[in-house]
């Protein structure tokens, strides 16, 4: 407002330009501070975006991205006829929705139950233990899983055999078990960490609500359902939007460290497919086309999920 009034009585064009210039020079030190960060995003996030045009070209190694000839939608044409591509799309969707279906409610339930723990100390210890796996890499996870479930050397197999005389079943590298292994290892690794956002929301609930509920004779279970759970609505909707927006991702690190050619049928996802055809087979333009396909669908999903959340009366992301 003050800017507008101070401009009265000057030539509008010149005044505006000079004022903007003065504003900018007021912030010159701030611009210097943000410059490295902005450069970082331009170099490592935006320059690769230019490379997307490769999806519409035939890549020639000696000509680079710019010099390679345009081929229109040929790459997509080839791609959409490829059974491996559709298998990867299918697996990605199944694994993502499986992760949401089985994994999404777990942190919500855990945080409600953590909130009901009476002993502060015990709650703290439980939280510490539950958060821990978030900080280890999927490489280490692969080590833990191997050590538990390997047929010959795994603890589970050895116990089954020597205690119960049961011939251990093959879990690793078995197409029948692979997706279940993905869901469970994902829950094991990430649910504990997922409770943080919900516990933070719970801690913001006005205690008077509980007090008046107790006066009204509400049981603890009823307080949980009618006070605690609704207080999580915002966090739940934000998480759901983010998960929906990430449906095309399905967790590269996890799959890449757990799968092998024997389970491609059920476990090869878009990202691992992009890696294999791009890096291992050097089909640069095809790999880029798959990546672009994925990014576009991702954006559409994110916007849609956000719209739906807004329509349901929850605050969305944007």
């Amino acid at each position, binding site marked *: 407002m003050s800017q507008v009034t101070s401009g009265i009585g000057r030539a509008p064009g010149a005044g505006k330009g000079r004022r903007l210039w003065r504003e900018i020079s007021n912030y010159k030190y701030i611009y210097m501070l943000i410059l490295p*960060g902005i450069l970082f995003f331009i170099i490592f996030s935006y320059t*690769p975006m230019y490379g997307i045009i490769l999806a519409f070209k035939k890549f020639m190694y000696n000509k680079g991205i710019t010099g390679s000839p345009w081929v229109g939608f040929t790459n997509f044409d080839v791609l959409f006829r490829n059974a491996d591509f559709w298998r990867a799309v299918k697996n990605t969707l199944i694994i993502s929705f499986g992760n949401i279906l089985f994994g999404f409610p777990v942190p919500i339930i855990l945080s409600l139950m953590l909130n009901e723990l009476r002993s502060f100390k015990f709650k703290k210890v439980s939280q510490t233990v539950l958060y821990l796996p978030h900080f280890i890499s999927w490489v280490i996870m692969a080590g833990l899983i191997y050590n538990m479930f390997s047929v010959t050397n795994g603890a589970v197999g050895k116990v089954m055999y020597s205690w119960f005389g049961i011939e251990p079943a093959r879990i690793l590298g078995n197409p029948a078990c692979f997706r279940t292994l993905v869901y469970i290892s994902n829950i*094991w690794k990430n649910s504990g960490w997922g409770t943080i956002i919900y516990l933070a929301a719970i801690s913001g609930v006005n205690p008077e609500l509980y007090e008046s509920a*107790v006066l009204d004779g509400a049981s603890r279970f009823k307080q949980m359902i009618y006070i605690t759970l609704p207080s999580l609505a915002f966090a739940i909707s934000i998480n759901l939007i983010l998960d929906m927006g990430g449906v095309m991702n399905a967790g590269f690190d996890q799959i890449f460290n757990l799968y092998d050619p024997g389970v491609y049928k059920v476990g090869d996802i878009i990202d691992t497919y*992009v890696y294999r055809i791009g890096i291992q087979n050097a089909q640069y333009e095809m790999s880029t086309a798959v990546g672009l396909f994925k990014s576009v669908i*991702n954006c559409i999903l994110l916007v849609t999920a956000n719209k739906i959340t807004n329509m349901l009366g929850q605050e969305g992301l944007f």
Partner: protein
Amino acid sequence: MFQSKRNGLKPFDFFNVLFFILLCFIMIMPFWNVLMTSLVSEGEYFSRPIILWPKNFYLASYKYIFSSDKLIRSMAVTVFVALIGTVYSMVLTTMLSYGMTKKKMPGRNFFLTIIIITMFFGGGLIPYYLLIRNLHLINKIWVMILPAGVNIWYFILVKSFFNQIPQSLEESAKIDGANEITIFFRIVIPLSLPALATFSLFYGVAFWNTWYDALLFITKEDLHPLQLVLRKMIVQNERPGLMDAAYKKVTGNNFGLFDDGIKMATVIVATVPILCVYPFLQRYFVQGIFVGSIKG
């Protein structure tokens, strides 16, 4: 009042505590199993179905790791990447976050938008690969550091943390003639040290766990980080014993050395530093650094 609450759901309390004890057991068991595997000989490992405590402590697996040139070098690479990477990321992230708290800065919304867009849209693997090639970063240790500069989530969290610093402090410094760069280093940073320590640890853990950029861009084995060497052992099932002279040196008088023991000892070596910084991390993230970000 509390009486009625407590009587109402006593069996539930019992069940709840039991549930979390069981859950903690499920969370710890795999780690314990790895630790025990790394501490026994081959004979003991295969003769006992589950090892809760070793009958004989057997440390040859660790002796092997710490006499293998390859593993020691990979640890050195990882430590270098974690230290330098953390400093680099923190410098970029804090300066950017602080700048973005200036709501009236011309172009601020534009900058914020271009940052946020990268969360949802990117060039994909191959354009990224070609970029790294054009930057001549292939087979350079910096390829594990430079592209991992700013984590957008941490940027948002640090920004919302800086927002909580009272404006009046900055304004009075300005009246004394300090410019924003001085204010940033002399006032904002010293006031935020505990939070910045936390984010340093987050970055440190992320750099410690790095393997993917190395897999993509580093063919020179000398520059492979610990996680990538571990990945080759576990995922690609590369036998550690075939790697170097250290194996012979250690096996000379140790018949109990075995692949799984070495692999799991490496897992332990790769996990222990995380366990060491973990208590410090935990202290802060429960204290509500996250709360602010969630609400705004």
